[in-house]
């Protein structure tokens, strides 16, 4: 019979191997290639900081990061507001638990379908000839089609919120489900208003859900390259879409240096968020 330690080691070995071979080592290759030298003739293994110097000295880099961070902040704000109230409604207002689970599934089902399809499904709605413009003209609210609806920052944010709100709803739903209902009675006995109960009872108790959801949404927006491209009609770029342009013309070292830079920034952001709440303790130990 196997000892307990050997058994645990065997159980986690496949996961550890996959993460090592397809996550840690590839990131190592990205870091290595970021120091390679490239010119018109090809890519030469080297140890040169020139790609970092190039990335850091380009005016474009700062613009890309500012634009991506602005999208991340906007999308985080909207997904947090929507996700919080949707989860709140499902957990505390729907009395029948089966109905609540059913409605929760209604929210999660689109997550299992193609992101690209869901993104392009906004085209017939937001376009110049789209349903919203026709509807508003038909109602006489506007006389000329609204141009800002499609291929703009607006449509980019709408698509992000459409795609990523589920990543806020699930952790919040999970945290809220674990709140002891008698706290509400205690709060109302103590004379708190509804809003105060939400602010001072619910929000502190779902902090870990907010943190997890925020990490998902922010990293998803930071890593996106296709929504920003298609939904802005090519007028906006993100950090990763610039990388995508680099590798399509085989500028791997430049893209790699950019990628290392992005990874450092994302890790710093996530680290800062995690300093606030120990998510692992919430997930694994507190049962």
């Amino acid at each position: 019979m196997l000892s307990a330690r050997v058994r645990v080691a065997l159980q986690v070995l496949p996961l550890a191997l996959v993460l090592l071979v397809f996550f840690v080592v590839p990131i190592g290759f990205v870091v290595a290639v970021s120091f390679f030298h490239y010119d018109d003739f090809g890519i030469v293994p080297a140890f040169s900081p020139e790609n970092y110097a190039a990335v850091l000295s380009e005016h474009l880099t700062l613009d890309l990061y500012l634009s991506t961070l602005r999208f991340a902040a906007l999308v985080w704000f909207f997904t947090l507001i929507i996700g919080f109230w949707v989860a709140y409604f499902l957990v505390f207002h729907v009395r029948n638990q089966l109905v609540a689970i059913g409605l929760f599934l209604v929210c999660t089902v689109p997550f299992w379908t193609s992101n690209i399809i869901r993104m392009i499904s906004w085209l017939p709605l937001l376009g110049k000839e789209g349903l919203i413009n026709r509807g508003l003209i038909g109602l006489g609210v506007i006389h000329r089609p609204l141009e800002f609806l499609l291929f703009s920052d607006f449509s980019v944010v709408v698509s992000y919120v459409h795609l990523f709100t589920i990543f806020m709803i699930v952790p919040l739903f999970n945290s809220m489900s674990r709140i002891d209902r008698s706290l509400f009675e205690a709060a109302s006995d103590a004379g708190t208003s509804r809003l105060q109960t939400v602010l001072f009872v619910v929000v502190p108790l779902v902090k870990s859900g907010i943190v997890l959801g925020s990490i998902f949404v922010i990293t998803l927006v930071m890593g996106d390259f296709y929504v920003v491209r298609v939904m802005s009609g090519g007028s906006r770029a993100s950090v990763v879409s610039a990388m995508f342009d680099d590798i399509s013309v085989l500028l791997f070292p430049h893209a790699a240096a950019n990628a290392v830079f992005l990874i450092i920034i994302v890790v710093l952001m996530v680290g800062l968020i995690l300093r606030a709440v120990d998510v692992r303790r919430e997930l694994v130990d507190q049962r």
Partner: protein
Amino acid sequence: MTNSSGNRPWTFYALAAFFAAYVLFLYGPMLCIFILSFQGQGGALVFPMRGFGLYWFIDLFTQVRTGDVIGAIERSLPLAFIVMALTVAISVASGMAFRQRFRGSGILFYGAVASLVAPGLVLGIGIGLMFQLLGVPEHWWSSAVGAQLTWTLPFGLLIMFAVFGRFNRAYEEAARDLGASPAQVVRLVVIPIILPGIIAVALFGFTLSYDEFARTLQTSGPTNTLPLEIWSMTTNVTSPALYALGTVTTAFSFLVIGISLGAIAVIQRRRFGRALPAKRP
């Protein structure tokens, strides 16, 4: 707030309306392209409907200019099944290990979370570079499987955390006391109890692989998977054939989701049916 009896507070109606608006926001656009994909030959990308029929579905599968849709499906399906099987096996095994603290458990957990939140394209570039520099050719059944596992495994692991969080270890101890071997404990006690969770992991593994785009883009080798085919269509195809492809893939995803959720519901019902106290001797 839930008063167990009496009238619902006004906030219920306000939030119910908010929720309904969210669901409309979620499904409305998708419904639009489903409807628009059933146009006739003169169909366009926007309303109103121009004719009605299956013209664009036929166009999708017969026209060469819309790309190799059938070939892409023939690759994406086995890919999704491979990723699903690996995700289930690896997530269940590591989920069982994570029930106790072990040396390196923290690093492994944060490694899985990092792999989940890492920018997909960057990971794809890394895997592509690794295969290129090692001189190994990329294929959907090698590099793309690995790339997709870095996305599906963390989800599987998180689900297993939730599943084992509600798992009563007394069942295992009881089985051991009755003389079951460790293998028997897993096969006859643990697996049947966590079966709904396993189906959920399989559902995640399959659909997340079938629709995966960012990580697969640089790792699928010379041939396209279905999401890559859709991606190239978004830039090349300006006919409702694009919507028809969206309708077909979404309908297939819904079928898989329906089967999985149905299976979970059947198992749960059977279980609760059995757990009810016997009325007659």
